[in-house]
């Protein structure tokens, strides 16, 4: 039994950022920074319960989208049958443990099949599971460099190309990377940092009432998880429905030129390199508007999105204090 997402006390930034990624997976994931014991992992694991269904090719282990990039198998099937049969499937949170080895990450030869039938067959790895799902790495800053290289590679390409042990296989690997880290334990490679669409920071709550509430809920959950869940199920269902509604309304919310201009004026005021920041900001404010049930993207959405999308992209001298960033963003925001 997982602790219900809606039962998490406060930490609204983190919760919203996670939800926005569900509404529009192309936002590109989330990095949660924060000190120990602030519920980072609990929140990510709890997200699983709120995830909607997506359409995927029936029985495809790679969760291929018939209208998107296809895996080698689906491509063959499409060539043979002329069409692909889709089925609804629940989105998932796939975990990447720290001790992972390369073969399990990218996939490898299926040993049993090879021994029994004397033929080579691809056995999907974690990247296959992660396609169109959340890929969750706890303590992402402690991940082995070698594994990070592989992750970055497929994140950049959106596909996982396997050429090993006489196997040739390609499958789509577009995942929402969600990482948690405690900055005291070490920094993250800048390249990997940039891969996270959004970034939030969590601290422990200093409000007594909220702390007591955390204690109560935790104690209630520990003593009877099922009963505790039952008291939250209505809220969970309501939030899940709201997320689905937001996903569906996304297409109807226009992204006007003046929204784009506002975004560009912010990012250029902060002299950010590349276009990833612009694109992520656009998608985030769009998803925020959908989540808030609006029909247009307002200045508030752009403002709120900017902090999620920009804080880890700001050019910062290695030792500049974190507080300085917020001022810079605020200064840029004041202009719109």
């Amino acid at each position, binding site marked *: 039994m997982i602790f219900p997402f809606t039962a998490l006390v406060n930490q609204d930034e983190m919760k919203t950022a996670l939800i926005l990624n569900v509404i529009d997976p192309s936002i590109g994931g989330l990095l949660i920074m924060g*000190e*120990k*014991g*602030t*519920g980072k*992992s609990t929140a990510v*694991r709890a997200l699983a319960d709120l995830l909607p269904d997506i359409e995927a090719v029936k029985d495809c282990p790679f969760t291929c989208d018939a209208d998107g990039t296809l895996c080698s198998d689906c491509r063959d099937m499409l060539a043979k049958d002329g069409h692909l049969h889709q089925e609804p499937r629940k989105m998932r949170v796939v*975990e*990447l*443990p*720290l*001790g*992972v*080895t*390369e*073969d*399990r*990450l990218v996939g*490898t*030869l299926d*040993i*049993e099949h*090879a*021994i*029994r*039938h*004397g033929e*080579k067959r691809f056995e999907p*790895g*974690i990247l296959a599971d992660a396609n169109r799902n959340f890929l969750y790495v*706890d*303590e992402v800053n*402690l991940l*082995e*460099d*070698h*594994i990070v290289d592989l992750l970055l590679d497929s994140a950049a390409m959106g596909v996982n190309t396997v050429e090993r*042990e*006489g196997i040739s296989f390609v499958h789509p690997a577009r995942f929402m990377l969600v990482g948690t880290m*405690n*900055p*005291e*334990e*070490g*920094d993250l490679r800048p390249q990997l940092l940039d891969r996270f669409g959004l970034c939030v920071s969590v601290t*422990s*709550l*200093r409000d*007594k009432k909220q*702390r*007591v509430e*955390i*204690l*109560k809920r*935790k*104690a209630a959950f*520990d*003593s009877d998880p099922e009963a505790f869940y039952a008291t939250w199920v209505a809220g969970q269902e309501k939030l899940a429905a709201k997320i689905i509604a937001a996903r569906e309304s996304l297409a109807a919310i226009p992204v006007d030129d003046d929204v784009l201009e506002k975004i560009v004026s912010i990012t250029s005021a902060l002299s950010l390199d590349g276009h990833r920041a612009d694109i992520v900001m656009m998608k985030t404010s769009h998803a925020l508007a959908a989540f808030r049930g609006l029909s247009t993207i307002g200045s508030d959405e752009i403002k709120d999105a900017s902090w999620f999308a920009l804080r880890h992209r700001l050019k910062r001298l*290695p*030792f500049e204090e974190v507080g300085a960033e917020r001022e810079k963003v605020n200064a840029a925001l004041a202009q719109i």
Partner: protein
Amino acid sequence: MSCSSFIGHDEAKRTLILNAIDARCGGVLFVGEKGCGKSTLARSLRSILPGGTPFVELPLNVTEDALLGTISIEETLRTGTRVFQAGIFSRAHGGVLFIDDVNLLSPEIVSLVLEVQSRSENVIEREGLSVRHPASFILVASMYPGEGDLSPHLLDRFGMCWGFESLREASQRIAVMRAATDADSPDADWELTRRISSARNMLPQVTVRDRLLEYIADICLTYHVAGHRADIYLLAAARAQAALHGKRDVSREEIDLVVPLVLMHRRRELQPPPPPEQQEEPERSQEPPPESQQQHEEPPPPEQQDEEQDEQKETPPQPQELPPQDEEVFSVGEPFKMKRLFFRKDRTERAASGRRTRTRARNRGGRYVKSVFRKSRDIAIDATLRAAAPFQRIRNRTDIVVIDEDDFRYKRKERKMGHLAVFVVDGSGSMGAQKRMVAAKGAIQSLLIDCYQKRDLVSMIVFRKDHAEVVLEPTASVEHAARRLREIPVGGKTPLGAGLFETYRLLERVGRKHPETRFLVVLITDGRANQSMSGMAPDEEIARMATLLNEQSGIDMIVVDTEEKGRFTTTDRALSIATLLGADYYTINELKADILTDMVQTNKTLTIG
């Protein structure tokens, strides 16, 4: 030895009893001197746990395979299907995982333990296996802090912590000797076990009133604990304590009884603990309550301390001792662009492995990241099988997989090779002259940027007045280091020998835990040593320390001279200290990139790439 016959240390015993009553108490860490009975007492937990509860010890030499579980060679070869062989996590499920000398455990293993413990599940994605099994266990551990510290992350996971002191009383010491030789009577713990079991039965009925939850939150806020684990562990411990008392309702008394056990290791350490001799100094009366009061049963009334006060506490605690004019905190000079300083002994390795902070782990440990053809000691059974698998029909496999010479694959293991740059900074009054400290801080800042880019660990030692202290324990967070750098004050005499001795102690401590660590010691001083700690002449003391440091392997040393050159007061004493240490010598100006390039071109044997 049974728990009941263990002499003294009643509080430590209580931590075990509470954990035996309710596993949600989150385990315990025993901290103390060697030979004070930490491990013996921890192991006695076995005798008070219900029969059949697993108690698994995690040896320091444990490999990743053995911990997580791995592919079973015999079964896999016999059956031709991958068979999982459970590891330590699986055996510890539902019981206790005991780690003796937990601070000596390699960081890779520590992060695995934490990961599995936090999700109460072991997720294996390796060697072609994809297995998950439940793994919830109580962590019990011991450490002797003299041999290295523990990551705050790991520290936070322990529900409780208790510091052992050796028993001083003669009668108790005699009793310990007696107990060590006496054979335990088989039912020594009978009475205790009975009390624990009735407390366990009672536990589900123990309730906590809201008022007391608020009391818990107040305490945690007062002590500025990080995160929310402290609250949760306090609640669990107080309930177990109430059950032990036979009470159905938790009262303040129980909470107060467990506060010292749960908060001992959690109070926010805004500043590394000062060396023990400082604690008696009167100036510390203005500091937050020292350890002894913390353990006091009644926590002080919650007083709201604002952030500003926090900031103040963060600065080193020396100030009040000298008149304020002797004490000055200089700003950090403009950092300059500099060429990278490399670890000299690392260069050949770099060429070989192509990675800076990685080295291939040849002997022990390290993480299995991929399989390769190149022969090593560890056969990668999964990869070997994969290589052999397609040929089994041709090779006429009967009841065991046929493996050819060509099929063998080997594990490539990697482990982080520690690079630690230790900045040994002269904080004496003479560093204040002509604002030498401003330039010195600028130089350190520049070196820190270099470390940041290379993701090396950094540490900082400051020597001034009559002692040296580690103001920054080795950390990967360079921002942390930069903050400490800004705070370094200047004033007092120059105990250079003490600075070198503290350096030696730090290197020894880190080296013991991470034998592959390469050290770069950067001594920043004007060389005007005028204070010895041993009664020897300062210069003689420095010479001794130099010998001591030179005996260590894997250390590169650099002396950065902060003295302004070309004046008639110039002494060049830092140069002679550099010679003594066998260190490379630079003035601050020489550290800057353009001049460095020149030096490299003139082919000096520098450690600069």
